[in-house]
């Protein structure tokens, strides 16, 4: 019988290290992918995912299953990613003070600087086709909170209530956030969307 996440976490709390290993195997790939899509840097994404697992382990003794495990897990991940992106943004500002920065009036978040994508190697650059690059670029251009909402909604398939808890907002605010995000993606990906929507 497959144990639920909450059961595994309670077993970790009781001192069962093997249950922590099962949680690691269950969520390593979704977490790394979520964080990679948030921060757009593989090494940074893996460092953050490791930090998420470490925080889960550290919190095992105080763990109370008051919410779904995934809500808790992705809340830690989202907060770490947002903090990390803010730190990275300051580093980018130091690199190029002349680059244009605009403010998203509704979210109060700065839009990401339009920095060319960094590719770890030429091979990866060649493998990525134009279509995937356009999609990635469109996601990157979303304000942080909208990006997190889209990634959690689309790839982690969390329900609205869960995502709202992760992002500390109401369900109606989340729906509005997602609508604006999809609108931006629709505009940004217009050439591809027009072909697809025919």
């Amino acid at each position: 019988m497959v144990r639920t996440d909450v059961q595994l976490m309670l077993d970790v709390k009781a001192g069962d290290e093997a249950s922590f290993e099962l949680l690691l195997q269950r969520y390593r790939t979704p977490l790394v992918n979520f964080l990679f899509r948030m921060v757009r840097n593989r090494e940074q994404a893996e460092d953050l995912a490791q930090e998420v697992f470490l925080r889960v382990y550290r919190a095992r003794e105080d763990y109370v299953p008051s919410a779904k495990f995934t809500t808790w897990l992705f809340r830690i991940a989202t907060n770490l990613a947002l903090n990390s992106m803010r730190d990275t943004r300051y580093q980018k500002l130091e690199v190029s003070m002349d680059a244009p920065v605009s403010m998203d009036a509704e979210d109060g978040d700065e839009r990401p600087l339009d920095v060319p994508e960094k590719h770890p190697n030429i091979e990866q650059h060649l493998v990525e086709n134009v279509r995937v690059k356009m999609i990635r670029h469109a996601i990157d251009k979303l304000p942080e909170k909208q990006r997190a909402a889209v990634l959690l909604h689309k790839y982690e398939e969390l329900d609205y209530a869960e995502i709202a808890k992760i992002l500390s907002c109401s369900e109606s605010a989340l729906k509005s956030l997602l609508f604006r995000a999809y609108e931006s993606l629709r505009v940004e990906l217009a050439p591809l969307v027009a072909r697809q929507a025919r």
Partner: protein
Amino acid sequence: MSCGKMESRILGYVDGRLKESERLDAEKHLAACAACRLRVNEFRAVSGLLDELPLIEPSPAFDARVHALVAAEPVKQSWWAWMRIPPRVAFVASLLLLATVCLGYYSRPQVAPLPWSNPMEADAQMIQDLPVLEDHDVLSNFEPLKDLPGKADDDSDNTQQQM
């Protein structure tokens, strides 16, 4: 349903997460509104495009690094955890305690049994002996007897024994 209301439900409709009644309302509106119908198609297209992003696998060293981080964590023990002893030690300690109690029980000095075992009997015996005790008190506190020389008694006793 208005186009504004449709906006708040459009993603739920595209995802298939609406309640049955909400879905029917949305479909009724879409049948009559070309703009919302187009938007639904475009949102579906966006959703399809997002599916095209490939998944990445964590690097082979990922698990090892998590294990190393976890292993480096200091072991936290609750305030009473140090009192917990391993079962083997607890068993041996229990045996030792039992042996000590048994040894103490069997090696204690034997007390001579009382001539009576019943407390009622003991009380009756004491009441029966009371006159003797009273005579003993009278004799031991009798002033004229104190004047008798004790040595003389001893001598007479010795003389009797020699005879």
